[in-house]
């Protein structure tokens, strides 16, 4: 977790990503995000829930510098990412994990990881569960779970403080999805990354420290969950929030 020391030498958590009044409209003027205000911290895993087409992926893209907001500003460590340069932001500050893995098909897992890192890729691949032999195969010959591990390894190799994952378990079976969820949780808690996951999966959302819901372009914080498995509580809060939205 990123901290800064105050004059009294107290350790205070600092926001790594901050969205201020961020809005986004498509070219046909349809507004998909409306005045989103959000602060995300290092060392936490966030889950963003919402129905299809509600703008979850768009929000993730804006945080990752893949696009620019129509309104508002996005800050990384207090600096406006557009002013600092979106390409540099993508290169240095954030790493993406996609539902469809998005690996480069003519590169091996090792080479895919080396795309973003000058560090030896093999230890990182082993850390996410790939053997030496698997690391030398054509990526398309790996299973979905293995490909997603390569994608995670690539994200970790970049040494970015923020990992943005768009439906990272969407194409995976339950067991593999759980393993991937654990890896992402480790990234947040042990490697002090800020992990933001866009998902439809309640199971994955349960693993998150904070759950956010995007509804009709507006963001609502649903809960702050610890890691003690308060899934019942989470469901209850989801229901209560729905009621609140309906009112």
């Amino acid at each position, binding site marked *: 977790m990123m901290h800064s020391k105050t004059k009294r030498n107290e350790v205070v958590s600092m926001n790594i990503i901050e969205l201020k009044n961020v809005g986004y409209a498509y070219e046909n003027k349809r507004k998909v995000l409306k005045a989103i205000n959000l602060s995300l911290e290092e060392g936490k895993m966030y889950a963003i829930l919402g129905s299809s087409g509600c703008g979850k*992926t*768009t929000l993730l*893209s804006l945080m*990752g510098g*893949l*696009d*620019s907001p129509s309104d508002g500003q996005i800050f990384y460590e207090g600096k406006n990412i557009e002013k600092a340069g979106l*390409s*540099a*932001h*993508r*290169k*240095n500050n954030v*790493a*993406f994990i*996609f539902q*469809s893995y*998005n*690996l*480069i*098909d*003519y*590169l091996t897992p090792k*080479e895919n990881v*080396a*795309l*973003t890192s000058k560090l030896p890729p093999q230890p990182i691949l082993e850390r996410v569960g790939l053997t030496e032999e698997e690391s030398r195969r054509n990526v398309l010959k790996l299973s979905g779970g293995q490909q997603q591990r390569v994608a995670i390894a*690539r994200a970790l190799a*970049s040494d970015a403080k923020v990992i943005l994952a768009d439906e990272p378990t969407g194409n995976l079976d339950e067991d593999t999805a759980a393993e991937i969820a654990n890896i992402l949780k480790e990234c947040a808690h042990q490697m002090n990354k800020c992990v933001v996951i866009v998902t439809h999966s309640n199971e994955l959302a349960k693993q998150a420290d904070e759950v956010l819901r995007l509804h009709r372009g507006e963001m609502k914080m649903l809960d702050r969950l610890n890691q003690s498995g308060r899934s019942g509580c989470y469901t209850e809060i989801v229901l209560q929030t729905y009621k609140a939205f309906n009112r």
Partner: protein
Amino acid sequence: MNLGTRAILYTARKWKKTLLLFCLLLSITTLVLSGLAISDAQEEQAEELRGTTGTSFTVSRNTATGGWGNGGNGSYSTQEYLTSDMMEKIVAVDGIEGYNASIRTILCLSDVNGQWLEQLEPTGHSMVDCQFYSYSCINSEYHSLFLSGALEMCDGEMLAPSFDNGIIISKEIADKHGLHVGDTIQAVNDPFSNDKTKELKIVGLFEVVADKTDERNNFNEASYYDYANNAFVSETTMKALLENYEDVGYASADFFVNDPEQLEGIIQQVQKITSINWNNFIITANDEVYERVSSSISDTGTLVTTLIVLITVVSMVLIILILSMSIRSRKKEMGILLAVGIEKPAVILQYTIETLLIAVAAFPLAYLSSKQVAGMLGTLFGKTAESVIVTTQHFTLVATLGAILLIAAVLISCIPAMRLKPKEILSQME
């Protein structure tokens, strides 16, 4: 991983695409190199033509503006003749490489012992058989019979203005009388008058290559007009042989230009010579042969140039299409590279390097293959295989322009994808 490594890995691992582009570049470059070689051979032929068609202009007496007189042989023009002084002034104009004026007469030829030589087909009357049609030449190289190709030198040399007492006879007459280049014979204009007999050295022998049906120069092998019975002497020799007769000058003279393209301008310059009364002379351009042949060569040249341009344009369109399709199919990769923070110029540079890597292999191979193919293709355009040569200059030109065009093709192919934001590329992939 740097973009160079990515480019090499892509080129090696996507070998089918690489092979397709390689084959395309190889065949296109081979064709263009061959086209350039054919075009150069064409140009060389045209250059050669300029020097060999004998493009000239003739300055002749204008009998229409002169008066007329009457003599023993009937009426004759009293118009002035072309003098040596006039001809020297004309030949001093830039662009004229030489000139010739000729007087034709019948000379009686004999060997050094005074034994009359015989024509090729003797009549049996020695005083008839020893008569040879003879031309005086300022420069025999420019005599119409040599220029037209009717006669060809086979031994010795042409008569130049510096020659004195020289004669050129046919090889057939020389063989008939056992004469060789360097031997001496005698010539007289009229043996029954007090005309001077001169000893002349044989400086050259010619062969008759004219078509026997050639009527242009009154060819008739059964008469005096048989080319084999012709002889050529220098101007000074002829003047000495005809010293008993009035030297009136020449009725006409032919002036030969270096470059047929400049003929018109040269004639204009000649007409500016004020010491010659141009009212008394006519200038006629003799460039029909050049115009006719150069028009045919120019047509072939245009065809070759059109083909080269066509091949290049069609090839470029084809390459742009293939590259566009290839880059379209790599949109996902582009989105991924942009998502991991690689900048657009670096992605374009990677694609450019990949294409150039293929070109680096294809271009030299095309150079080698075009050396084999060019000659074969050249024969389709009426060139000899030996005259169509692919040079290193052609290769340098094609390689440089090819590389520039390939870079342009990659850039054009990248435009549609590069105009999109990374999010749009990634969402299109989804």
